[in-house]
């Protein structure tokens, strides 16, 4: 089974879970033209991200993210795409679109990195003080221990 890795800007570490799972697999990063047009970020942000990318084993392209990722997978005749999880709703929508375009029998797998804290009961997010009260004991321990 051939596998490719899809790297996005919420996880540009060489130790991110998708790159760690499949070292040496072809990997791609796509500059999202739609996002760039919407956010209008300045050059310094692009330079910083690009410098991060230059330390990663990725092909860098730009355009329509879903299309580019699917094309890349086809180029490599991949039946699996690995990517790291992101809290971004845009990334989740792109994941759904990529998965929908993949041929039958192939799949997209979204991998999570080690969390900052893992607690059995979802913490109350109404105010930070409530959240911190729920996670403090775990957060002050190394690793991602369960409470």
């Amino acid at each position, binding site marked *: 089974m051939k596998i490719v890795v899809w790297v996005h800007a919420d996880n540009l570490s060489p130790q991110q879970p998708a790159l760690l799972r499949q070292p040496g697999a072809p990997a791609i990063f796509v500059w999202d033209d739609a996002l760039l047009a919407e956010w209008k970020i300045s050059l310094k942000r692009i330079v910083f991200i*690009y410098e991060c990318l230059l330390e990663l084993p990725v092909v860098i392209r730009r355009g329509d993210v879903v299309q580019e990722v699917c094309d890349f997978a086809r180029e490599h005749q991949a039946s699996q795409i690995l990517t790291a999880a992101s809290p971004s709703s845009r990334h989740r929508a792109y994941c759904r679109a990529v998965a929908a375009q993949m041929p039958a029998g192939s799949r997209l797998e979204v991998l999570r990195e080690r969390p900052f804290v893992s607690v059995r009961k979802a913490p109350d997010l109404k105010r930070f003080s409530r959240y911190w009260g729920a996670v403090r004991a775990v957060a002050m321990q190394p690793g991602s221990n369960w409470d």
Partner: protein
Amino acid sequence: MSRDMRRSFSTRDELVAYLAQEFPAAAQISSHVASVRGGRSQAEQRLSEARLRDYASTRSYLDGAVTRLSPFIRYGVLSLDEVRNHALAAAHNPGEVEKFINELAWRDYWQRIYAEIGEAIWEDIEPYKTGFPASEYANELPEDISSGTTGVRFIDDFCHELATTGYLHNHARMWLAAYVVHWRRVRWQAGARWFLQHLLDGDPASNNLSWQWVASTFSHKPYYYNLENVVRYTGTRYQGNPRDFGHEAFEGSYDEIARRLFPRIDLSETDRERPRAPHKGRKP
């Protein structure tokens, strides 16, 4: 022709010139480049140099022992888990770095909310608690703010710093955000969009929710400050006659400032700026 973008550059200037050509709209917004470079090796160096045990006592000062790790954390070059583990390993006892880890937790908190509400992060989570409805705030950022020509010295300095370096100390972010929302009565979304254009660590969760905290749409009350607070945390930069700096609008006690900014409501003594501020969370 290959669709792949270039990966090989002999100098940083060559890289910057290439990117300015590839992304002309970004260069038009601002062609400045930050001195800090991206990448894991830079991140690891910063982490190893961080003065984490001095962080708690000095972080509110512009020249305090802040780590400037936020751009690397924002892009996942460093994970919160590994930064926390590094901090605990570097401390003689966990209490020394609890404040730092608490600030890491702010980022985790913002991210969890973002994962839950998605694009609603651009909407007011709660009503303003300033006495003014959202409709009384301007939708667009005034040009004198984006160009740093308000005539208020410390505000203009921070505007220029933001545009040229992509970095602002957290306290400066709070002062600038409160100026935009409360002194100029501009909706926080306009300021948040502006910050996202420039901040190297700009991410919608930490950025927008911090703006909402300042605005009071995600907190119990608005964040505001006075000149004494600015002078205290900025070294010698703004000492002297406030009129020489255009700082008159920030003079006075917290109660006086509150009466001027929020004449329709009564903010008690406890509403003044507290020593620790939630806005700090996303930028340890």
